[in-house]
């Protein structure tokens, strides 16, 4: 594990020698900060005259402001994360430095955990930036610490899962820009699919004259399909969690997702040793 630490440290420092570390943290600070101010001002307006905005009373602070804000932050991190992950392994292949790493006395796990660890530290820095925003609320509202902490945790968990997907893609594609674009495309697709899935009706829209036998089957398939679309996208589970609803299935979803993609990355790195 000492070697993993060394690899991770080098990766992390390289991030801040090149501009990419500053770019991603700067963008996150800018976007989440702006979003914070704008949505907070909107909430203030709404709570001053709730009737104008169609609310019958002052809407719940956590539900209308805090939780959507956390979800927004998670989605920002998701879309910016290719800047982090496209470098992790693709760049080593592209520059040929993989030839050094793979001939040094290193295990695959040193390389993978080192790289993933450095990405997690950058994620942590991003979370700290977001935390700075929401901590501004503490003196002015009765939001509890635990709610904020839980929201930040959900952003972190989501970010971790996203980084593991990016790491895996980075291990497959030896050209960093392509790896970044492919990850970005996948996140975009998931985001769109997740949003569309929410608008699908709960049961299959079949005409009433449809044969009964087929109807049951199609109904089942449709429900399966719909729940897959609802459950698979990375950002959907953060919505519950950011509301402060602690459901083991949401946490498990992110942890399992991370473990699964780290596992795939191991297989992908190992595949070089399969004799051809």
């Amino acid at each position, binding site marked *: 594990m000492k070697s993993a630490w*060394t690899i991770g440290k*080098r990766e992390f420092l390289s991030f801040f020698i090149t501009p990419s570390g500053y770019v991603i943290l700067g963008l996150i600070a800018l976007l989440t900060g702006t979003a914070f101010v704008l949505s907070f001002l909107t909430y203030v307006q709404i709570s001053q005259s709730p009737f104008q905005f169609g609310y019958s009373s002052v809407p719940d602070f956590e539900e209308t402001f805090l939780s959507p804000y956390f979800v927004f932050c998670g989605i920002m991190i998701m879309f910016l994360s290719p800047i982090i992950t496209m470098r992790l392994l693709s760049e080593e292949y592209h520059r*040929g430095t993989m*030839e*050094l790493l793979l*001939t*040094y*006395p290193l295990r695959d796990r040193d390389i993978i955990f080192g790289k993933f660890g450095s990405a997690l530290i950058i994620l942590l820095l991003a979370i700290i930036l977001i935390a700075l925003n929401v901590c501004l609320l503490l003196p002015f509202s009765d939001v509890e610490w635990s709610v904020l902490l839980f929201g930040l945790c959900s952003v972190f968990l989501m970010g971790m899962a996203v980084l593991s997907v990016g790491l895996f893609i980075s291990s497959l594609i030896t050209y960093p820009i392509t790896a970044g674009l492919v990850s970005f495309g996948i996140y975009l697709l998931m985001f769109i699919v997740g949003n569309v899935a929410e608008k699908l009706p709960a049961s299959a829209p079949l005409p009433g004259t449809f044969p009964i036998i087929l109807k049951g089957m199609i109904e089942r398939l449709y429900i399966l399909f719909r729940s897959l679309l609802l459950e698979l996208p990375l950002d959907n589970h953060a919505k519950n969690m950011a509301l402060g609803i602690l459901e083991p299935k949401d946490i498990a979803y992110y942890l399992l997702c991370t473990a699964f993609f780290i596992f795939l990355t191991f297989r992908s790195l190992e595949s*070089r*040793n399969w004799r051809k």
Partner: protein
Amino acid sequence: MIEVQKLTKYYGLFCALKEVSFSIQKGERVGLLGPNGAGKSTMMRILTGFMPASYGTTKIGHYEIHEYPLEAKRLIGYLPERVPLYDEMTVKSFLKFVAQVKGVPRSELKSSVDEVVHTCGLEQVFYRIIGVLSKGYRQRLGLAQALIGSPPVVILDEPTVGLDPQQVVEIRELIKNLGGKHTVLLSTHILSEVSLLCSRALILNKGEIVAEITIDPSRPSAEIEQAFLKAISKEGLD
């Protein structure tokens, strides 16, 4: 120290190495010669565990590289042909990183970095960023990262390419001094270099070892040139 048996490597359908076998004793310096595309770099990449062979075994010390990669790689210092380096790092931080990855203990870190910096003549550029180094200095840094931690087996793919004449002499002297303690396998296109540095030369052509020459230090170096051309043209006539 290095034992290769029936090593075969296919790139798709193309056969880059055909049942190559040889062995190198401890402390020997062996040159790998051959025309472009003969398979020298392929051989070295397999020996260092960067890629697997299609068939055959490679033993470094007592360890089969494919079965005990970690133990075998601890014994190897490797200079790849294209000298890949982390361009954004400084020479200093890169060498420290390599020493740590190779498991040099913390207390010896500085002395082992200083040692390779001295032997490879990197003092002048020690605090520079690798991306701005000249070709020759990159080559020296590649050599330095291979030698750091003083591995018993040193595998160098064209080590003197791009060096200035004085540095060529110095690096050759360095490689010569590596013999005895270290086992050295190097590839080169300069025939006289082999007769200067090595006790033995393997000539590779189209993935096969076509000749093995023991170099007599008292004989003139023209001999190896003849042997090389003969070995390669013989292959061409078949």
